[in-house]
């Protein structure tokens, strides 16, 4: 594989920025172009529903790379630009400004956008929570007595609910599932999260769907769910997940994201990383797409090295974390409703701390720590035992 002259990274969020850094850290000195559709300087997203939303850090703390940092990397940043089409046959892509850009290697790091509910999204008081502007607009509303309706009891929805309660809002969360977050963390932990929220005054309506919406001009004043309950609201936040931005990736295989092999390679000279990528995890022996922050940068580092000629099989141990009131949740490996769960309470742990272990039969698949992050490290070692025998665990260490 010849050293590429021009690498184009599409997407200027966690994956794209990490890839740019990793390419230079490998000593590669070619022409590097970064394309970002949002405009402005690249920023980090997890704080949008956490510390930034809570007013605990300034906007500047989210900065992923400064102008000086870009200069130091000799990076050409096309901000406010998006890719509109891909032509793999001649290694080029089309941009929203009408130009065509040739690449020797391409990294698709376009992430995902919030899913919306079309009818609701036209309301002046209905928001998604994906971008900085969303977060700042929602934060303005988090004042004492405001009635916040959160549609969707996932991580973003529940994190926002916690902060809104701490700000003195009245918070109602509606969701299709019987237990909040059960589809992600299983019933036991889902119930514990629900109890935590209820103790803090959040009202849940589970197992229901939106049935009716009352408008006053462009404002939604009330929604009714299909169980008949009516919920009056000042603000609605729709947090029903995200969809990858891969519509422009013509000529590639798309399933839950751009389909890649274990080397994060989608086609000749084309790679993908982060929320937009579905790749073959050789450890688990299946295709996966992971919408978590650590995966964005970890996969970007692997893809960057592979773009320069390495053959790293990207096989990480999945990880994410969530802040809910004073509770911090960390998850390692695979968790979910399909596994049986046991709880490890430890006398050495502080109050309201424990570790949940997720088993498939006798095999440990995942570990979720509840306020016990340091302790959890003792439990995560066997998580790779389930992996099919391969050199996958050498992944990035190699």
């Amino acid at each position: 594989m010849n050293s590429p002259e021009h690498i184009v990274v599409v997407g200027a969020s966690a994956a794209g920025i990490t890839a740019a850094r990793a390419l230079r850290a490998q000593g590669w000195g070619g022409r590097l172009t970064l394309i970002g559709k949002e405009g402005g300087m690249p920023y980090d997203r997890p704080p949008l529903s956490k510390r930034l939303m809570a007013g605990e850090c300034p906007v500047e703390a989210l900065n992923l790379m400064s102008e000086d940092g870009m200069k130091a990397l000799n990076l050409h940043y096309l901000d406010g630009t998006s890719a509109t089409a891909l032509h793999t046959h001649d290694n080029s892509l089309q941009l929203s400004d009408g130009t065509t850009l040739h690449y020797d290697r391409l990294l698709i790091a376009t992430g995902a956008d919030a899913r919306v509910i079309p009818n609701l999204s036209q309301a002046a008081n209905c928001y998604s929570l994906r971008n900085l502007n969303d977060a700042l607009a929602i934060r303005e509303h988090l004042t004492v007595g405001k009635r916040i309706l959160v549609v969707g009891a996932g991580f973003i929805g529940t994190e926002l609910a916690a902060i809104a309660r701490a700000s003195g809002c009245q918070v109602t969360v509606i969701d299709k599932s019987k237990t909040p977050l059960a589809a992600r963390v299983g019933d036991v932990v889902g119930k514990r999260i629900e109890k935590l929220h209820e103790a803090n005054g959040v009202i849940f309506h589970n197992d229901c769907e939106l049935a009716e919406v009352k408008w006053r001009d462009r404002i939604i004043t009330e929604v009714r769910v299909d169980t008949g309950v009516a919920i009056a609201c000042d603000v609605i936040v729709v947090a029903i997940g995200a969809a990858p931005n891969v519509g422009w990736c013509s000529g590639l295989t798309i399933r839950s994201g751009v389909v890649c092999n274990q080397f994060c390679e989608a086609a000749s000279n084309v790679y993908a990383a982060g929320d937009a990528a579905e790749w073959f995890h050789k450890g688990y022996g299946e295709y996966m797409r992971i919408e978590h922050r650590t995966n964005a940068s970890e996969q970007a580092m692997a893809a960057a090295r592979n773009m320069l000629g390495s053959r790293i099989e990207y096989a990480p141990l999945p990880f994410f974390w969530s802040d809910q009131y004073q509770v911090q949740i960390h998850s390692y490996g695979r968790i979910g409703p399909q596994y049986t769960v046991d709880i490890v309470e430890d006398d050495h742990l502080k109050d309201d701390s424990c570790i949940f272990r997720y088993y498939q039969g006798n095999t440990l698949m995942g570990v979720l720590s509840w306020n016990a992050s340091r302790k959890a490290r003792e439990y995560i070692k066997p998580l790779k035992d389930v992996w099919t025998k391969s050199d996958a665990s050498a992944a990035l260490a190699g």
Partner: protein
Amino acid sequence: MKITIYPEKCCGSGQCVVNAPKLFDQNDDGIIILLKADPSPDQYESARLAAGICPALAIEIHEDL
């Protein structure tokens, strides 16, 4: 190379300890502790990995120019 940490940003993921156990540790609350601010050249790669992988941007690497 020099390493700077920002414990106030740390989310306690422990990813740094897993990837560079000679350079980082966690306190009982899971918050990052820097064991070595000036890694030896054979530790540069793991230091970069830890900084790149940190989901909270709590580790900064200053490369020698």
